[in-house]
């Protein structure tokens, strides 16, 4: 009697294991690296690809993910970039009609995760994306802090390409830290730092500067790039200060900066630190001291916080010079009206970089994906990454895109410097043309 009970339990256990094994087979669409040729019978050899292939059955969508900052103080950046990705999907059928087009006869499905503009956010979002073996590639992150050593590593370990529209920290594409599956269409801050140093030293003719930056890799890297270039031009750095991105009381730090009497204070941070630097710094610094911020400052919430320009204190912010491509017929006549119709006025300039990144990715998918003739697609992961990094002479909306092996795809960059409050974002006062604009290549600054 007792034995029969055990047999019954064993039989039940065995049946459950069989069911579990059967379900497990259906779990992922990814073929393992050692799995031989593709199960769908395509010509691609997935065994040769270290990270295998993504297999998409006929009728199933191609799954992309975005890992962008869509909440908190930097939501303006990630939400805007998401709109760029959505417009690229919309334009797959050749028109901006508000309905998604198809790629290789498959729908494109976009899953949106939040990078939180922090390492913790990048880790959580990348881990969630990496758990889905059907994700082909990721557009993100918004902030360098979410990518550097976090999302770029987590996704890279799974062979998932991370393609950023707005990361600018030099470390991400440096020899030491670059992860093989990382690329970006945003500029490298070595270029932005060099152009701002040119603006301050050559255009304004000022020779002493102090820097103030928060703890983010973005701010730290950009401040360092500015200092290196400013000193190379013959300028003197009178002070280097660091604050926390959650600081509201910047009075003592600015008192310390004021003691060294710089002509310029460079603060490449995010808001609200940028806006607080302007208002509090103007109360403390000597009359006429100029403050300069970066593309992290140049957004609508700065205008909301500060209001009218402060008398006797000029403020400038650098950013990719949108006027360089805003004059292009496609941007002006098709893209911008579609963006405005569907989402309102852009809140940053990086939606165009996201649009370009998504289109470069689509081209790469078309180049490496194999259709077995029945509509089943096989996309080898390493080949996809290689195809993106091999992009050369691609005529994007933000300019000509040529990727380096280290993932920098914006190699020829025009940066503009905009005087407050003539900024090319919602709330900015016309005219919104830059007061200084310069083009540099990556080779110029490395």
């Amino acid at each position: 009697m007792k034995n029969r009970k055990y047999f019954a339990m064993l039989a039940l256990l065995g049946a459950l294991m069989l069911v579990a094994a059967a379900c497990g087979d259906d779990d992922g669409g990814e073929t393992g690296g050692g799995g031989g040729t593709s199960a769908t019978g395509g010509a691609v050899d997935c065994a040769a690809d270290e990270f295998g292939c993504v297999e998409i059955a006929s009728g199933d969508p191609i799954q992309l993910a975005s890992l962008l900052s869509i909440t908190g103080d930097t939501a303006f950046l990630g939400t805007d970039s998401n709109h760029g990705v959505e417009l690229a999907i919309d334009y797959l059928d050749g028109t901006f009609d508000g309905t998604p087009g198809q790629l290789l006869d498959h729908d494109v499905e976009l899953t949106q995760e939040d990078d939180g503009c922090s390492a913790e956010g990048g880790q959580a979002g990348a881990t969630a994306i990496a758990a889905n073996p059907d994700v082909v590639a990721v557009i993100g992150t918004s902030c360098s802090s979410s990518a550097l050593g976090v999302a770029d590593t987590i996704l890279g370990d799974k062979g998932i390409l991370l393609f950023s529209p707005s990361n600018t920290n030099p470390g991400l594409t440096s020899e030491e830290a670059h992860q093989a599956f990382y690329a970006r269409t945003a500029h490298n801050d070595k270029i932005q730092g060099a152009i701002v140093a040119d603006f301050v030293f050559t255009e304004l003719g000022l020779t002493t500067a102090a820097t103030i930056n928060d703890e983010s890799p973005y701010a730290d890297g950009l401040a360092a790039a500015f200092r290196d270039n400013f000193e190379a031009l013959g300028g003197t750095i009178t002070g280097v200060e660091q604050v926390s991105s959650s600081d509201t009381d910047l009075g003592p730090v600015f008192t310390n900066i004021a003691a060294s009497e710089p002509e310029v204070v460079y603060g490449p941070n995010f808001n609200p630190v940028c806006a607080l630097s302007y208002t509090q710094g103007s109360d403390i610094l000597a009359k006429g001291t100029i403050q300069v911020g970066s593309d992290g400052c140049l957004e609508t919430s700065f205008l909301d916080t500060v209001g009218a320009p402060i008398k006797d204190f000029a403020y400038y912010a650098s950013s990719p010079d949108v006027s360089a491509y805003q004059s292009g017929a496609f941007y002006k006549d098709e893209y911008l009206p579609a963006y405005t119709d569907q989402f309102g006025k852009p809140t940053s300039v990086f939606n165009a970089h996201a649009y370009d990144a998504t289109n470069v990715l689509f081209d790469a998918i078309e180049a490496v994906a194999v259709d077995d003739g029945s509509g089943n697609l096989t996309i080898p992961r390493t080949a996809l990454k290689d195809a993106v990094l091999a992009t050369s002479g691609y005529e994007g909306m933000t300019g000509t895109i040529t990727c380096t092996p280290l993932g920098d795809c914006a190699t020829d960059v025009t940066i503009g410097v905009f005087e407050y409050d003539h900024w090319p974002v919602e709330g900015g006062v016309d005219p919104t043309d830059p007061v200084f604009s310069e083009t540099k290549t990556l080779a110029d600054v490395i």
Partner: protein
Amino acid sequence: MASATDEQLRGAELGLLERFPWRRIILVVLSIVIVAVVAIGAYKTLTLPADERYSSTTWKNFIVLGLAQGAIIGLIALGYTLVYGILRMINFAHGEVFMFGAFGAFFFSHAWEQSGFLDSNPVLSMALLLVIAMLVSMGVAVLLERIAYRPLRNAPRLVPLITAIGASLFLANTARGFFGAQSRGFGVPEALDGTWTILGVEVDRIQVVVLVTVIVAVAVLSLFVSKTRTGKSMRAVAADSETASLMGIRVDRVIVITFAIGGLLAGIAAVLFSITFESVSFTMGFRPGIAAFTAAVLGGIGSISGAALGGVLLGLLQSIGPALILTGYGIPSSFQLKDAFTFLVLVLVLIFRPGGLLGSGEAEKV
């Protein structure tokens, strides 16, 4: 016999070791080292070459900024200390009570800035902004007590503590939902731009307004607690709530009044903070909240004068400390260490005076 003697000897040695005042010696050595580090750092800073030395104007700015910031922190700290005195709980949501007051005032300051009322009637508009922020903060504090804390009055002490953290997150995220994630500019009357000269020293008008308002608020609170019938009830409940209850004092009513007073003070602090930094955001309660809690512990939690003293000391430490002590050692970007420096001081104060600076033997304890 011989072994018994050895054991007795060992016992005598152990007793000697145990009796030796190691703790006291370590504390004395530690205090000597700290005093030496501080003194050498300050000496080095003050004797830097003339072109690297801070000017007297810079020191004056450090002191005034520290006093003004410390006064605001002290005002918020009073809310922590009052509630702790009565309930023996830390109201971690007090920073958000402060934040709601700031938003309440923000909407009016924004509208009045647009209409010109702020600049044409600076005194009246500032007074009204203070009243609005005080009422909003008081309302949130009283609701918080009624909804989140009162049902847990007899629960173990950890329960209301966790509830307070939960309430803090709830309030912050509610504000984010209602008011948005981005910071907004806070309208300040033009009359508060510029400086006043007081005893030959130029001081920003806003800092003068902040200091005067805080001094008046603390004086009124002290008088209220020491002279009025309700204040005496508060002190009685703080001393022993059960006995106070037996004496006919309505403990629940006293607790609500305590939360209301904490809210009123947070509302005043919110307006002062907003005109100082000219911006409001849903996260604005977090850091001042932590700083105020630190100030309350530094001064001696439960003590009114301790909270005010703790706030001012904290403000001065954050403003002057890095420049005075760390610059002399050539530490770059010394202000990035201001929080580390401040909390080091807090730890040291608590080592030597575990009850805080005015925490023990304090007659005014509430």
